[in-house]
């Protein structure tokens, strides 16, 4: 049975074929190293991940290396592969993953980790690095999840901490040695590279308390890798254009990396320091090239907060001027709740209607001080009014519940705030008030490593559910659409986020019990995960909910993102004293 004959039996077969515009096909006989880049979720999600496109471009631009892609097969395809004994293959040349020199797996978020095990299993590659032999490819991880690599440390030969666009060529050189031991030695010399087998993990009771110590002369701490100048960093303007409708069916231009706002709950803030910008000239040139090379009708400017980009007005103005006539729209996915953002959005509006999203995160000034989210109520209302009077009828508002020091009053304030926004909307829209739609999204706070709140235990599921119920009761009406995350999902995310090396066994056990695609609500099963932790001799609850002492050794202390533990502690103490003020 070949893959071709399995395609009629699965949904969205185009996930497993290829031939997309700008996909690269190289002859394996003429390269020194073959790398398969794997995104451990669906094709549609993986193809919206810019990191994958950047690494694909860097590797394939090099004459000596080749990169192909693979994604986690959807359960229907997984069943077909297993039933017919077909191994997981790359898209481009349908080469079994086993036959590559290295597999590079993205760690996008914790809930994909069972998919990683599944991908390795379908590829007939041993899940644990310790069980791999000379014929197995190197399995290398990297991406946002790498800032706490411990939960998946046993599954990887090496994990790059930080940004990979420079390191990827060194990784390919190591793979080109085609000798496992020599390659591992070479990998351990790459700055930012964590080779878990060079570190011994120790534990202290149940929960995220324990240390990781080097052996074999490895450095005590791994410093996160990052590119010094974004303007010089490689960027693919010839991005692959999927046939399938992906999450982001548009050109993505990264205008800025990093964020200095310092929101205390935000791991990305710590994981992408320092703030670096591309120049307006570079972005304009890349926009022209990318539109010509892809044929997309939308250009999206990627940044954590695009309005913090210094040349944002000039850039948006020029993009609209140059692309608007061709029917190419510009979108800014990360607006802030202020008047400046609305003025910017108005400029974009000249070409295309795009949605507006504000993320106040908390509804009282006190709680916003605690999390260091500097948006005042007045600013938010001014922005909402400006948006409505400029013709917007739809707004998205993002909030979090379960934040440190949060009380029921803080939660009730969310519904007051939303109702006031609705009131402004009705007033400003007049006869069009019937079209007003406020989408309110309620996430649960998750304590994340390398943030000032890393020591804080997550609120219990019962507590989060009670707060959700308060909001469900208070936020009704035609104009309001309320959505929230399953507290069970948040609890698992917290447990894995703060996990130590033992959590890897719980992930293996969850996979054995059938867990996969845990980020998809139809596949998520909290009880299965609780059982998996239990069978691994661990308590999920401890990892998510235990509040740690500032002096406790943490499983991720050997990873340095650039902010010292002392500084994080000082920031945490400041947060709590500001909450009392």
């Amino acid at each position: 049975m070949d893959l071709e004959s399995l395609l009629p039996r699965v949904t969205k077969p185009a996930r497993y074929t290829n031939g997309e515009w700008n996909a690269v096909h190289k002859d394996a006989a003429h390269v020194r190293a073959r790398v398969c880049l794997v995104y451990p979720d669906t094709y549609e999600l993986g193809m919206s991940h810019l990191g994958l496109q950047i690494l694909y471009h860097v590797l394939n631009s090099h004459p000596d290396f080749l990169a192909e892609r693979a994604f986690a097969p959807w359960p229907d395809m997984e069943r077909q592969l297993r039933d017919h004994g077909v191994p997981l293959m790359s898209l481009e040349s349908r080469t079994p993953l086993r036959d590559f020199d290295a597999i590079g797996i993205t760690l996008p978020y914790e809930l994909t980790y069972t998919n990683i095990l599944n991908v390795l299993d379908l590829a007939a590659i041993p899940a644990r690095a310790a069980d791999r032999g000379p014929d197995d490819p190197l399995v290398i991880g990297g991406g946002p999840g790498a800032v706490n690599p411990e939960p998946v440390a046993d599954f990887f030969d090496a994990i790059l901490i930080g940004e990979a666009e420079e390191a990827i060529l060194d990784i390919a050189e190591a793979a080109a040695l085609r000798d496992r031991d020599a390659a591992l030695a070479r990998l351990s010399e790459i700055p930012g590279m964590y080779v878990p087998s060079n570190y011994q993990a120790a534990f202290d009771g149940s929960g995220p308390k324990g240390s990781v110590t080097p052996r074999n002369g490895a450095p005590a701490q791994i410093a996160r890798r990052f590119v010094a100048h974004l303007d010089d960093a490689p960027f693919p303007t010839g991005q692959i254009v999927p046939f399938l409708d992906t999450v982001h069916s548009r050109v993505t231009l990264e205008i800025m990396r990093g964020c200095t706002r310092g929101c205390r709950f935000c791991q990305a803030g710590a994981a992408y320091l320092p703030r670096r910008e591309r120049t307006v000239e570079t972005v304009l040139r890349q926009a022209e090239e990318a539109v010509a090379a892809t044929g997309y009708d939308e250009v999206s400017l990627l940044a954590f907060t695009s309005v913090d980009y210094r040349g944002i007005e000039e850039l948006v103005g020029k993009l609209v001027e140059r692309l608007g006539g061709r029917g190419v729209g510009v979108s800014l996915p990360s607006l802030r709740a202020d008047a400046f953002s609305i003025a910017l959005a108005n400029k974009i509006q000249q070409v295309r209607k795009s949605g507006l999203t504000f993320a106040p995160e908390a509804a009282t000034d006190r709680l916003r001080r605690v999390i260091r989210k500097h948006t005042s109520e007045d600013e938010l209302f001014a922005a909402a009014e400006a948006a409505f009077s400029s013709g917007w009828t739809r707004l998205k508002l993002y909030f979090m519940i379960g934040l440190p020091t949060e009380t029921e009053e803080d939660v009730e304030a969310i519904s007051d705030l939303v109702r006031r926004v609705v009131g402004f909307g009705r007033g400003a829209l007049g006869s069009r008030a019937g079209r007003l739609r406020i989408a309110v999204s309620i996430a649960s706070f998750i304590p994340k490593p390398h943030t000032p709140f890393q020591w804080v235990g997550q609120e219990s599921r019962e507590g989060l559910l009670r707060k959700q119920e308060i909001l469900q009761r208070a936020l009704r009406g035609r104009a309001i659409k309320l959505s929230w995350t399953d507290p069970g999902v948040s609890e698992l995310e917290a447990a894995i986020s703060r996990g130590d090396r033992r959590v890897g066994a719980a992930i293996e056990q969850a996979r054995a019990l059938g867990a996969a695609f845990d980020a998809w609500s139809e596949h998520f099963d909290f009880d299965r995960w609780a059982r998996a932790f239990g069978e691994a001799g661990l308590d999920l609850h401890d990892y998510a909910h235990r509040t740690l002492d500032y002096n406790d050794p943490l499983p991720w202390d050997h990873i340095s993102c650039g902010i010292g533990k002392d500084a994080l502690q000082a920031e945490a103490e400041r947060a709590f004293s500001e909450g009392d003020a």
Partner: protein
Amino acid sequence: MAQIICRYHKRDEVRWISHLDLKRTLERAMRRAQLPLALSQGHNPHPKISLSPPLPLGATGDAELFSVQLAEGMDPGELKQRINDSLPSGLEVMEAWVLPAHRKKETFGDIDIAQYSVTVKGEVDAARVSEHIADLMGQEELIVQRGGKRPPRSLDIRPFILSLALAQASEDGVELRMRLRTGSHGGARPQEVIELLALNGADRTITYHRTGLFAGAQLGAERASAGRSTGAPRAGRLHRWTRSRSSRERSESP
């Protein structure tokens, strides 16, 4: 303003992309080709492209059509060249022609017959297939179940099978040819016909290829209900959609 019609092939791996994805693919290819696309008015300007009726997912075709509105005239030969340079492998424009300025936007709404060649590879008893076809075409009604994600419902597709014949038989398998009603007034799917003939099975490889699109089912449908003929429609009754069809040329027999 100019309107251009293209006949194109869809084959190889792109046969696995859906109608909607195909439309986006064509749009993007035309943007890459930097054609002077006419854009719709309004907040969300988009090019004006129409496609002939969807191919079943996984089927190939060489009589597929799309129309596109251009802001200014263009030589069809140059257009064909430029689009083909920008199309992913598996999609290729075979001919392109300009519609006269007075013609309204072509949306292929009159296409209501599709002709397929279906190849069944594997062990097949050709004589049994012939008998089965004769039996099928003699039936008053042929009930199939449709549903997908919705609850299944029964549907009689006999009126939508205009012709069905065994075209070739060899040791490797058989090739069937069929003309089926398609479009908004109902239709049959080639997979349904294969299932009715019990030719689908795990040990067989079936490939679907659309070889023609026609306008004028009214005639065919009348004939089918009157005569229950298993043969091909008489020449001259249908209008094959080709370049010259823009002036409704007569068709040849399949």
